[in-house]
């Protein structure tokens, strides 16, 4: 297994290199020069040149040991992302500061969605073919068809503003549970459709298995069969879904954070895109790529833990 892990970790290098190359090309070759945005109005040519020198944009893009891309790789390898050009704050500080608020939103949202969707999936799989099952599937499809932004606007207007059940937005006097409650609820509601349908399909595959019929024949209760046996055997697809979602928790939720004023990494990302702050976008993409590759590996390792038939020889 150790050899497998080492091999997989080595695969990380070309993958992350590819991601960095693509983002670098997108923001340095395709998008325009942002020097004027930094220089302000009526900036002289010499000021622009000085800015370009300060940020290393006067160097060749590739094909040199001192090129922008090589320097970008070197800095990323040491997590020295430099300062954001839009506000001159160290990027690593931004990322550290944003991780907490993002996780305070995404972790409860993720866990809530997981618990509710798996529980409901087990139930609807158990009553498959009934009116209840059909209604749930229809609601799921409808939920998947509604844009995420509509969930946000609807929730914010009715649950926050109109009915006053939740704060409509972050406010300094509020505690974290108070101001994340509504976005978490919205996130769960919006994510339920897709997740519930996926887990229902997984559970249906399992529920039709011989061992389930055997368990019922032996006289086990439905609760014991579903939660003890079916759930355990359905773990492979669940693990795939769950573990691969974890990296995205660190990256936050772009829309929810912006609409509810949660100063997390999603908000940071959307702001950086708006400001063409390539350094910030690149740093976030780099971290996202590493997390994704690492959690992919963890998923594979978890397979062997829940299913002894899987080995890495």
């Amino acid at each position, binding site marked *: 297994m150790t050899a497998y892990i080492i091999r997989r970790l080595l695969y990380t290098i070309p993958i992350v290199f590819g991601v960095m190359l693509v983002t670098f090309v997108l923001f340095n070759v395709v998008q*325009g*020069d*942002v020097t*004027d*945005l*930094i*220089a*302000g*109005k*009526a*900036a*002289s*040519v*010499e*000021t622009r040149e*000085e*800015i370009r020198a*300060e940020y290393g944009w006067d160097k060749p893009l590739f094909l040199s040991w001192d090129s922008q891309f090589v320097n970008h790789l070197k800095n990323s390898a040491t997590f020295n992302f430099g*300062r954001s050009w839009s*506000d*001159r*704050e160290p990027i690593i500080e*931004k990322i550290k500061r*944003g991780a*907490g608020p993002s*996780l*305070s939103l995404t972790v*409860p949202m993720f*866990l*809530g969605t*997981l*618990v509710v969707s*798996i529980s409901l999936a087990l139930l609807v799989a158990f009553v498959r073919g009934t009116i209840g099952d059909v209604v749930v599937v229809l609601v799921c499809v409808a939920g998947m068809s509604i844009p995420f932004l509509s969930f946000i*606007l609807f929730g*914010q*207007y009715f649950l926050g*503003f109109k009915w006053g059940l939740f704060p*409509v*937005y*972050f*406010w*300094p*006097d*509020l*505690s*974290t*549970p*108070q101001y*994340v409650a509504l976005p978490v609820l919205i996130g769960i509601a919006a994510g339920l459709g897709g997740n519930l349908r996926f887990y229902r399909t997984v559970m249906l595959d399992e529920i039709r298995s011989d061992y389930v019929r055997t368990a019922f024949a032996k006289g086990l209760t439905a*609760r014991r069969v579903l*939660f003890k046996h079916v*759930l355990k055997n359905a773990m492979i697809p669940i693990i795939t879904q769950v573990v691969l979602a974890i990296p995205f928790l660190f990256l936050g939720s772009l829309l929810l954070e*912006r*609409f*509810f*004023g949660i*100063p997390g990494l999603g*908000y940071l990302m959307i*702001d950086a895109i708006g400001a*063409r702050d390539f350094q910030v976008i690149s740093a976030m993409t780099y971290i996202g790529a590493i997390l994704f590759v690492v959690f992919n590996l963890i998923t594979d390792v978890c397979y062997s833990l829940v299913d002894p038939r899987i080995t890495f020889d």
Partner: protein
Amino acid sequence: MRFFGVVIAALVVFIAGCDNSRPTSDSNEVVTYSAYAAKVRGLDPGDIGDTTSSAVASQIFECLYQYHYLKRPYELIPQLAEDMPQVSEDGLRYTIKIKKGVYFADDRCFEGGKGRELKAGDFVFAWKRIANIKYLSKNWWIFDNRIVGLDEFREYTKTVKKGEEVDYSRVMEGLQTPDDNTLVINLKKPLPQIVYLLAHLPTAAIAKEAVDYYGKDIINHPVGTGPFKLKVWHRGSYIELVKNPGFRAEYYPSQGAPSDVEKGYLADAGKRIPMIDRVLMVLVQEDPPRWFLFLQGKIDASGIPKDNFNEAIDQKGVLTAEMRERNINLLVFRDPSTYWLGFNMEDEVLGRNKPLRQAISSAVDREKYIHLFTNDRGEVAYGFIPPLMKDYDPGIRDFAPTGYDPEKARRLVKEAEKVHGGKLPRLTLSLAGTDAVARQQGDFYKRCFREAGLDIEIDYMDWPTFQNRIKSKSAQIFQLGWIADYPDAENFLQLFYSKNASPGPNNFNYSNPEFDRIYERASIMPDSAERIELYRRAERIVVEDCPAVFLLHGVAYVLQHDWIFNYKPHAFGYGLTKYRRIDSVRRSSYKELLRGIK
């Protein structure tokens, strides 16, 4: 089931663990709450270039001069200066006495943490710092080629490897401090507008101790002489300012415009300011939550989002019953802004074809544009000097040879074809923005051009590309605008001065020797009837040459709750929170009012 138990327990523990709530304020404190729509980039005045950062930093930092809060037309009065400057006869030497007894706010950058007294040298340091090319300030344009020796100082900074190694003690003829309370500025050429620039936030006094102590993190640690000091800046979330206990005795103005008594703006005359203990500003970048927060009474004032305009303002242009029921007041005031479709006068097709430019000017339906894209929050522009400026020419409307007239546009297009020597090629309009509104604007222009018989292609692009296109003179027609930095029309006239052609601020690359002569003469004249006359002549020359389709002048709509007082609109002033007054009892009763409405 154990799995779910673990998940739920983890959820509860996680959320509880994330509790970073802040204590609520002392109930006796007077607090003003506001929302800002763009991120604060930094609180270092020397490098501030955006309005949000300026709005915050101007509560903390002060300049030599400030605008009188109430008087109109806008009038400068001393802020950290003792009096208005003494100007030598040749207009080159400005001697300014600095107020005594002004102290920087207490901060650990000072010895013993106690703020020291302000000196004339603090201005010299701040301005030399802007000149330091390694500092990369956005605000060098303020001093560029204006003060004797400052450009040479900038040259010197090019020879230094790092910004921190710059020797700020180098003596300079243009900026002298005979004593700690006297500042002498020697100009290269007369510049009457310099007093306005000395009221501009980037010229605020900076303590060298703070810059040395905090280094690059000075953007997070503003240390000023102003009425408030920074308590919390949760980046990307909110800012909290508290009253600076060491702020000198300053009082609410006792004089104002004639209608100020009636409007209640003089009710607090002579009272010591600031009248507010705490300022809380929350970043809200999306319109819906900002609107909800305002209607809930969480924030004291708000603009009107485009999508909520009909909810707030009725067909007659007054507040709707829903707003009146909430005791919300409406303020409508002019912006010192002008927006236009600019022509690149160096373009082969447009530059030599005045009938073509005039045809385009006649083809654009300005009123329709204002209605569609600003909810009627604008006035049709006939020239470039906004009506708010005292130099505005009321006769420009009748003088302007072009207005929306599709028939005339078609006639002019025929004339333009003769000038061009055949059928006109397809024109290209560059628009900054790729969103839905930009596309709608593009469609609007396409229709206007088509009606005149012109073929137009819309080129949508992001802002940096758009700027590069203009700076490199490769845009043919472009949509842009200008908001005045100070209440002097010279600020608009410089946009048409031939020596300011791209990459300078003259994006039109417009050149007219007669205009240049008038500009060169008027821009160094002190304010007078003769100068106003020259400004107006210059504007008419430009309007006649038609290097742009002047579209509109902005009009702002602001809603305010009835518990905030002294909220007089000001087109140029920043740092006005010190004048505000809050009636906390009225604010508290708003919740009752809302319950009644529900």
